[in-house]
């Protein structure tokens, strides 16, 4: 478009502005640049114990706190952070029985308030999360696994698990829950109380991270500045998150140069390609599969009035498979996602450990096969109506519309009602147990280890397994559960990879989800930012600003 012309007006204003600013001396000294980021969601809290997975606060916590371990930019491999070594069996930091982990800690690290970092702080931080057990937070990630924690000495910390858990180390990477807070700062400001939010920490993070909080104007912006006393590689530039802007405004701001980086999604990339000064980054995939859930645990009389399906509709594997065959994957990936994404098999996303590319996946619409399965299941002639609940106006809703179009085109007796509801209503609907809809759409939470996915989304006794009654649907629920348990406890990588591949095949034959796609990790940024890299394991939007250098 005529964007260049719009820019022409800017110098006029900017020149005047600069003139005035020099006069007042506001810009005079600070040599550091500020990376301005157009963010999607404002944090509700900056307290690691209370932040929701995937919420806006997680990205800030990621930058101002450190964890014991971290994930590098290039791979899912773990790297030392506040712990000086990654525990393995080989280096002896994991005990022979695989239950006790020892973390040697870094010395000479200080918190932003000047107090020194010791093993007590680690113990305190993790204890605090477990004890507060905030419903918003993810304390169970620690509390479910840890049997005991010990401070061995000032710089050695030990954890004993309930059972062998191959994914435990990844728990120590998560910004929510695993971030190390200053014991002194918390004790001086309210301490720890079960179920009670800590007001101080929700707005005043005291960590050891490469950045410290500089200012937070609610609903407008949040600024972090470089921590000059950082123990590790110092960050380059300060960062300011700008909040409250719609996706299209962020895209425009980026085009106009108001933002250096933005959080965006694939549907806006078309607006940014070829714009001067903007680089589109489109490598890799997010680890948040876009899924539609089948409810196998529907109580009598709760479904929306129009739904005609029997309560055990999704107990029949043929119907679940038929839905998977009927979905128009091409429309979703190449249409709605503008090609930024990949058809994804099931709950072992591409990019996590052990993903077997050889395993079969649902990746093309096969209406004939879908029809065959629907006929076999005996629903073809009678037809059905089913509602799928989803946040209105979201990408997930588009996924539902594609499902609707796919299914309804297959047979005019099939009806899918897309019940688009407000986000709060959706969250409340899903918080019910059992869920009062037969289907719903959203995306999965990212995790570094396949076990996290499999346990949450596939295990019959897992989070969704219980809510949705997967046990009613799996041909052999015990076998599936045992397989997933085995994956969680297998410490030998090769064996574990084989088991994961097997799980993929099992879940292909007995699907509990319809996964439309794995969304591409795309973003766009100004070409003044050097060192751009995106790691889907970092909190949304998967950026680590400490690695980026803004050069004017």
């Amino acid at each position, binding site marked *: *478009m005529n964007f260049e012309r719009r820019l022409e007006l800017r110098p006029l204003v900017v020149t005047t502005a600069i003139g005035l600013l020099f006069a007042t001396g506001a810009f005079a000294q600070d040599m550091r640049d500020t990376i301005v980021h157009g963010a999607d969601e404002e944090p509700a809290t900056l307290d690691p114990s209370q932040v929701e997975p995937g919420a806006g606060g997680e990205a800030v916590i990621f930058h101002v706190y450190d964890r014991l371990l971290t994930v590098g930019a290039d791979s899912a491999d773990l790297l030392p952070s506040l712990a000086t070594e990654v525990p393995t069996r080989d280096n002896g930091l994991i005990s022979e029985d695989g239950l006790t982990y020892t973390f040697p800690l870094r010395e000479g690290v200080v918190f932003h308030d000047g107090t020194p970092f010791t093993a007590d702080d680690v113990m305190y931080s993790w204890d605090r999360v477990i004890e507060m057990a905030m419903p918003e937070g993810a304390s169970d990630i620690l509390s479910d696994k840890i049997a005991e924690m010990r401070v061995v000495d000032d710089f050695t910390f030990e954890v004993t698990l309930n059972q062998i858990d191959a994914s435990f180390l990844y728990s120590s990477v998560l910004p929510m829950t695993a971030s190390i807070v200053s014991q002194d700062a918390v004790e001086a400001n309210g301490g720890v109380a079960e179920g009670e939010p800590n007001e101080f920490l929700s707005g005043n993070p005291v960590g050891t991270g490469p950045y410290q909080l500089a200012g937070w104007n609610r609903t407008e912006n949040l600024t972090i500045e470089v921590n000059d006393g950082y123990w590790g590689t110092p960050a380059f530039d300060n960062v300011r998150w700008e909040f409250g802007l719609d*996706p*299209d405004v962020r*895209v*425009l701001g980026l*085009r106009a140069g108001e933002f250096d980086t933005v959080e965006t999604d694939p*549907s806006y990339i*078309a*607006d940014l390609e070829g714009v001067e000064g903007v680089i589109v980054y489109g490598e890799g995939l997010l680890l948040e599969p876009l899924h539609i859930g089948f409810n196998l645990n529907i109580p009598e009389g709760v479904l929306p009035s129009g739904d005609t399906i029997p309560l055990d509709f999704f107990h029949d594997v043929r119907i679940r498979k038929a839905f998977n065959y009927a979905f*128009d994957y*091409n*429309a*979703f990936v190449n*249409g*709605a996602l503008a090609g930024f994404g990949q058809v994804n098999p099931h709950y072992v996303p591409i990019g996590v450990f052990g993903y077997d590319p050889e395993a079969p996946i649902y990746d093309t619409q096969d209406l004939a096969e879908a029809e065959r399965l629907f006929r076999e299941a005996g629903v073809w002639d009678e037809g059905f109506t089913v509602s799928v609940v989803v946040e*209105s*106006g979201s990408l997930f*809703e*588009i996924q539902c*519309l*594609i499902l*609707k*179009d796919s299914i*309804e*085109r297959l047979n*005019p007796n099939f*009806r899918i009602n*897309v*019940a*688009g*509801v*407000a986000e709060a*209503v959706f969250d409340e609907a899903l918080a019910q147990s059992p869920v009062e809809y037969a289907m719903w759409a959203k995306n999965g939470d990212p995790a570094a280890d396949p076990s996290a996915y499999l346990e949450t989304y596939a295990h019959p006794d897992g989070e969704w397994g219980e809510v949705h009654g997967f046990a009613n649907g799996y041909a052999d629920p015990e076998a599936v559960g045992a397989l997933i348990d085995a994956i969680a406890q297998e410490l030998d990588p090769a064996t574990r990879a084989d088991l994961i591949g097997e799980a993929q095949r099992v879940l292909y034959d007995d699907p509990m989800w319809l996964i439309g796609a794995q969304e591409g990790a795309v973003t766009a940024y100004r070409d003044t930012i050097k060192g751009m890299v995106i790691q889907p394991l970092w909190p949304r939007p998967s950026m680590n600003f400490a690695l980026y250098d803004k050069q004017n």
Partner: protein
Amino acid sequence: MTDASSPLRRPSLPRETALRVRMRRSGELAVKILSNPTTIFGFVIILLMLSMALFAPWLTTPNAPDPYQMPRDWGALRMPPGTPNHPLGTTNTGGDVLYGIIWGSRTSLQLSIIVVSVTVVIGTAIGSIAGMVGGKIDEILMRIVDVFLSIPELIFALAIAAILGPSFTNIILSLCLVFWVKYARIMRAQIILVKQNDYVDAARIMGDSRLNIYFRDILPNAATPVIVQATLDMGAIVLIGATLSFIGLAESGIAEWGVLVSEGQAGIASGRWWASTFPGLMIFLWALAFNLVGDGLRDALDPRTEGR
């Protein structure tokens, strides 16, 4: 006193002549209304819109199974006007803009007819009760009306629709909940005014029942402003309904003009002007047509305002 026993029973002849006068008047009225070129323009637009709504299934292939859903062509997203099969282009989700315009006229028609008829009936009933009965009941009803009038209509409707959840049916419901107030107020004021006329007293002295007086002497004479307002509201309600769906209170994928304008706005920065422009034009024309006809009606019914 019943009609039959009353020695002062009203002779039946005057009523017939009154009817004849009324018929003659309505003929004159029609001529008067149609003598205004802008009113005719409004009528023409309304007729075109109505025929579009009526012939929608023949003008386009109805989307199966639900014709009120946009047909989505996932292989032709964001296509400009002039694309084969999509003369007015497509939306972000591949919806055909022309289809949305044609079926949107049906949606709009439903919206305005349902809301106007429901609110006119409710409002007239409540306003009539308040005006005829008076006293405590009037007082209570008017205090309720006052509460409803403490918030701008659209905002009240917005809040209600938000609470009910996003769907077109809920938009209709929320508008019904809000709009009756206006008619109740107009009706009450009119009835109080008409009640003061001598012929009402005369009818009362003649011993007519209250209901009779209401239906024969008061209602026909009090109805004019309600009719004018209802005509104007046929347009206004589509405008407000479209605003609500623009804000995001209709289910997505529905063929509704406000939804289409809303969907289209994301693309305008990138030059995709068509998805918002055409449906918005339809809303404009719809509201304009009813405004013109409503104005013409008011001028004809109330000569005092002529030429304004």
